């Protein structure tokens, strides 16, 4: 375990000249579902304004790690998290931290598009409303518009803002969910296989979107597609059986990984 922790910190030393800024840092994070341990002391830093991809075979704990970054694990009855996760140096599991505020800062996009059964407008406006981000209707309209523009959906829905969000196509729904997450101006956006329910064209759109969002947001994305990880991310973390195998620049992971398990997984030899 210790060895692994060192491995993950290695890039930090290597790049000492050009010190990267870490937005969130997981330190020896273990997650238990009841008595079953799903994550084993994972130490993974997440760089600011960078897309970090989490890859690994099914059931290796990618979603579990992702959910612990905005404490969505709290909503699972028997789930317990140990270790430390910081956001801008502040422990997010500290009792003084309010989950509501944390989740406003660390937004989430889910695997299956899950728009509220309300209008497109209300879907996007809901977050800003509950967080009091808009002082009046005009403000709110503005937030909705910019969020939809950022999510690349504005042109497709600007004439039907008051129609049901659930009436959109799957890809549009997923971008609506991204717009909804973006609308509360989070600092980090977590995406759990956001394209797994989408066709290649919709996938391309979402990937393009992730590219653009990178300039403003820190993004952590779980994906089963090696090509997608290679296309959208700058950093990649490989998980296996609840352990972090290695984390490095995406180029390096895909061309010359340190670990043979990573190599095997990328070459499709297991998983």
């Amino acid at each position, binding site marked *: 375990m210790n060895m692994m922790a060192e491995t993950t910190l290695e890039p930090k030393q290597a790049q000492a000249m050009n010190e990267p800024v870490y937005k969130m840092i997981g330190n020896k994070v273990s997650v238990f579902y009841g008595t079953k341990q799903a994550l084993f002391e994972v130490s993974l830093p997440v760089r600011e304004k960078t897309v970090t991809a989490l890859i690994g075979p099914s059931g290796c704990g990618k979603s579990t790690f992702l959910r612990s970054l905005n404490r969505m694990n709290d909503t699972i009855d028997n789930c317990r998290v140990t270790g430390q996760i910081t956001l801008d140096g502040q422990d997010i599991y500290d009792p003084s931290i309010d989950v*509501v505020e*944390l989740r406003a800062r660390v937004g989430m996009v*889910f695997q299956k598009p899950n728009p509220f059964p309300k209008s497109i407008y209300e879907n996007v406006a809901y977050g800003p409303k509950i967080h009091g981000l808009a002082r009046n209707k005009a403000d709110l309209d503005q937030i909705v518009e910019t969020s939809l523009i950022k999510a690349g959906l504005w042109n497709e829905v600007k004439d039907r803002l008051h129609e049901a969000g659930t009436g959109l196509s799957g890809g549009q729904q997923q971008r609506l969910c991204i717009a909804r997450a973006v609308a509360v101006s989070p600092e980090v956006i977590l995406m759990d296989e956001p394209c797994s329910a989408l066709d290649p064209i919709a996938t391309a759109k979402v990937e393009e979107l992730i590219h653009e969002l990178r300039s403003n947001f820190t993004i952590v994305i779980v994906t089963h597609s090696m090509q997608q990880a290679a296309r959208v991310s700058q950093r990649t973390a490989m998980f296996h059986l609840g352990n972090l195998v290695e984390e490095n620049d995406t180029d390096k992971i895909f061309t010359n990984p340190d670990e043979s398990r990573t190599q095997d997984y990328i070459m499709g030899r297991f998983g």
Partner: protein
Amino acid sequence: MSDAVTLTGMPAQARRDIGIKRRYAAERRFRAYGIIAMAVGLFFLAALIFSVVSKGYTAFVQTTITLPIEFTEKDVDPDNKRGENPAVLAQGDFAKLIKQGLAKRLGFDPSDRKSAKLATAMISDSARTDLRDMLVADPSLVGKTVNVSLLAEGNIDSANKGQIDLSVPEARRKVKDKQLEWMKTLRDAGDLTKAFNTGLFTNGASSRPEAAGLGVAAMGSLFMMVTVFVLSLPIGVAASIYLEEFAPKNRLTDLIEVNINNLAAVPSIVYGLLGLSIFINFAGMPRSAALVGGLVLTLMTLPTIIIATRASLKAVPPSIRSAALGLGASKMQTIFHHVLPLAMPGILTGTIIGLAHALGETAPLLLIGMVAFVADFPATPLEPSTALPVQIYMWANEAERAFTERTSGAIIVLLTFLILMNLGAILLRRRFERRW
């Protein structure tokens, strides 16, 4: 294709159509059973509705006899005191006015006691109070002659509706030949008519069928429904939300859950006993009061509402909760902004079905004394009243033909309310569902 092989190694073709015919036959048989079951159900429903409606529709019309009534001063205000005290008019001899009116109309001598007795028996006793109320409301009628429509007596009403067997010898008949003759005269002159029976809806209990109505019972039922709705919906929904969303999952909540399910199956009469011992004997609330009935029915309805509400809360997709929580909504916000609106159609359906059950419930009300002869309208839920199903129960125990007809009439009224409530449930569900 020919070399395709199944997992067991047998040639694929050989296995393919095994059982296809049997499967289709099974499906056809299943459908046939379904259709038979439906047909049997519909037949009994139709039989029920036919029997109730054919027996009961006549309850909605009532025979009235129009008589020229002269409010002679010496009968209603012999001492001429109405100037100082109009209340003396209420003590008038209205039976005499009716007798005189009948004598004038039917042309017999008022002193002929036999004819007078037969004739006055044709008019309901309640006509006297009707005349009294009329005169008290308008004292200027004294000395004038007015044509007044008076309620016919129950047996005359039945005879007019053709419900009395006239082939029976006169001595064993409630309606005598002389009366039948008079009825014919009056009918030919248009003075014996059938009119819509408003009394059925406005009158309270009465031992005379023609004057008995559902008014008090409907009022009692209304008070009870309001009580049940106001109490059981918020309590039931709040309890379900707590149990479903907030309560920790442990032995205690499991026990509570099992017990709620058990309570839903407890016979309603047990709730009546509970209400009797708690609300009446212990808390000292009045007997026969709609409020107590409402409380008992609330207890009875709560499990139904809680079960329906929990089921519809459970049915809300978890992805909606995750979406809201992931945006930073608190648990309360998630529930009240997203989960509850989606669960609303189910909750309302459950509630209205619970209310409909409560509306038709009789047994517990018998125990708390709501089976009573209540002639006066209850002004508050604390005054004695009855309920629609209890009224049906009481009328069903009466012997007169006119009560039989009213029993079915009351059943029609009750069924109409139930159908309206179910329609309401459907409409509400549609309305809420249209908001996606």
